[in-house]
């Protein structure tokens, strides 16, 4: 039985445990039909031209882990940003881990999707927001069909959430192969500000496939600062679909740091439903071996006087492959749009490759849109210059790569997180120097 058939037949078993009278029931039933009709995307589809899921779909994944596994905090502490106080929503093999988590209902809700979907207290928010901006493509629909667990974050208006929120998914290897489908809903009301860090971490060499969907709603003047750390091990793959709905005068930032994993596909979509707002998406990708990272972004400028900024840096060694597919749509109404996009890449080996493709669809006439992409090697003359000053080859290369990714790193607003990312990069580049760039 292939994975698609297995998922479709598992849906019945999944449903038996759910409340069929819930409004979500209809959404799920609809979604599984969509998935059943369309199946997994293939390279024949334009949006998947350079990314094949074949190698990750061949495993016989467990869809519902049979047993719960406990983890000791001291063994996994290093995956947390642990030097500052944070809220934490932690899952182990798809199941909520209360002893590793720190949730709250004190003025804000930082808790679980599983309870939000069933408790009356959350009904209004769920009805207003759940699955409202997630499109009906096959992978998102698959996630919707099985949506049950994940992070539920609701920040009422005028709240500055002082501690960042960490969402971490661990896979332990209890199953020979595991498929996870977390579903996150983040609703930030007027004038509120929240910082969120998301990480998927497999602790096993067994294959793990995560098909994650996150919906983010930012109401007027809200600020949402979201960081994705993708530094998973070599048999873990991630398909991350994130949808951001912005209203007037909001600022939303998503940083994606892709350093590890077998295959990563990021579908990052911003919908600007208002005026005078800013959407920023930045990323650093540093991969090697046969790893593959695909950034597929969309900014939809719907109303006038808004900005978007995209800045993605990629460094590819060995036989690794990268994709950047950045789409900017400017509607006829969206005059005075400023949209910037930049994708710069360094290929460190003859076998590494990057496919980069900007797509601009502009229907308004008074806009500023720019895009640029570069593909190059490390600057040999700069390397000689640095070596002449006594900096050894390896360190000189690392320093150049740090410098290359510096403006993305610099916009990380949580100092401890920035330090952590810097350390991960240094480790990846095999150097041990604390460049304080």
């Amino acid at each position, binding site marked *: 039985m292939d994975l698609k058939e297995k998922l479709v037949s598992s849906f019945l078993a999944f449903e038996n445990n759910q409340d069929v009278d819930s409004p979500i029931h209809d959404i799920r039933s609809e979604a599984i039909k969509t998935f059943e009709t369309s199946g997994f995307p293939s390279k024949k589809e334009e949006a998947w031209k350079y990314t094949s899921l074949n190698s990750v779909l061949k495993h016989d994944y467990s869809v519902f882990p049979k047993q719960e596994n406990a983890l000791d905090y001291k063994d996994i502490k290093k995956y947390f940003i642990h030097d500052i106080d944070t809220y934490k929503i932690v899952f182990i093999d798809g199941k909520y881990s209360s002893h590793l988590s720190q949730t709250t209902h004190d003025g804000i809700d930082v808790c679980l999707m599983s309870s939000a979907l069933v408790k009356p207290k959350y009904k209004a928010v769920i009805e207003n927001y759940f699955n409202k901006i997630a499109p009906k493509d096959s992978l998102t629909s698959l996630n919707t069909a099985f949506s049950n667990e994940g992070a539920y974050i609701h920040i009422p208006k005028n709240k500055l959430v002082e501690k960042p929120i960490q969402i971490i998914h661990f896979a332990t290897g209890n199953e020979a192969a595991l498929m996870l489908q977390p579903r996150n809903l983040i609703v930030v009301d007027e004038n509120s500000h929240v910082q969120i860090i998301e990480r998927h971490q497999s602790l096993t060499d067994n294959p793990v496939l995560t098909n994650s969907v996150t919906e983010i709603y930012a109401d007027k003047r809200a600020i949402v600062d979201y960081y994705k750390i993708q530094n998973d091990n070599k048999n873990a793959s991630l398909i991350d679909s994130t949808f951001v709905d912005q209203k007037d005068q909001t600022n939303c930032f998503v940083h994606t740091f892709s350093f590890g994993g077998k295959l990563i596909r990021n579908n990052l979509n911003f919908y600007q439903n208002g005026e005078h707002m800013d959407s920023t998406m930045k990323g650093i990708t540093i991969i090697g071996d046969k790893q593959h990272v695909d950034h597929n972004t969309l900014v939809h400028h719907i109303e006038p006087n808004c900005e978007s900024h995209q800045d993605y840096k990629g460094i590819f060694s060995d036989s690794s492959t990268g994709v950047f597919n950045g789409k900017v749509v400017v509607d006829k109404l969206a005059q005075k749009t400023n949209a910037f996009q930049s994708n710069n890449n360094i290929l460190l080996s003859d076998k590494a490759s990057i496919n980069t493709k900007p797509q601009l669809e502009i229907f308004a006439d008074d806009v500023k849109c720019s895009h640029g992409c570069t593909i190059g090697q490390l600057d040999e003359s700069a390397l000689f*210059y640095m070596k002449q000053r006594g900096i050894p080859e390896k360190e000189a290369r690392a320093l150049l790569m740090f410098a290359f990714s510096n403006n993305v790193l610099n916009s990380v607003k949580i100092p401890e997180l920035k330090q952590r990312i810097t350390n991960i990069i240094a480790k990846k580049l095999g150097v041990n120097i604390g460049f304080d760039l």
Partner: protein
Amino acid sequence: MLQIKDLHASVEDKSILKGINLEVKAGEVHAIMGPNGSGKSTLASVIAGKEEYQVDKGQILLDGQDIEELAAEERAHKGVFLSFQYPVEIPGVSVTNFIKTAINETRKAKGLEDMPAKDMLKMIRDKAELLEIDRKFLSRSLNEGFSGGEKKRNEIFQMAMLEPKLAILDETDSGLDIDALRIVANGVNKLKSKDNAVVLITHYQRLLDYIVPDFVHVLYKGRIVKSGGKELAHELEEKGYDWIKEEVDA
């Protein structure tokens, strides 16, 4: 300190240096002059260890040790400094962080601990003052958007920080106005001692009014065709290079 014996070197199979002999002792200043394309910058790059240059014959000895097999950074650790004719821009790395990294990597190679931050700061301040460099300048990205004069001054600032044994200044005077030239020359003169040596590579005599050489060599077609004292530079300034070309080509 530096002995070059019958040095032949080429780049991409094109022979450029064709038998250079040169000896530089501690405490000396040598000027290497010559028309464009004579091999001056190649000589500087070969001494510094640029990989594209192939030594076909001969030897470069530093304190009696053949340095041909050493990588550029190892030569730097032994005290070789090359002030580039065209310093490279490195966006994203500040002048301060670059020089800190260079100094600490050099110390590491010598088995020393990092220089304490306080000492480093003081040294940076002192040397910046020597070269009349503004503090704000130090936090800018290395050479990015610098004027020609700022780049050269920054090279000499790095030289001052690294305190090399052998400094090779490749066309350091080009692109400098008279004030910048005076500042740079003053810096080099203050850094001179009986223990180090300076090799000035220049096309014009102008710099030599400020940094007075003990010896002047004329490089032409990959060979040193004439050597003399500082008066040779004046003669070249007056008469140009043609008479030397005629002498050699005859």
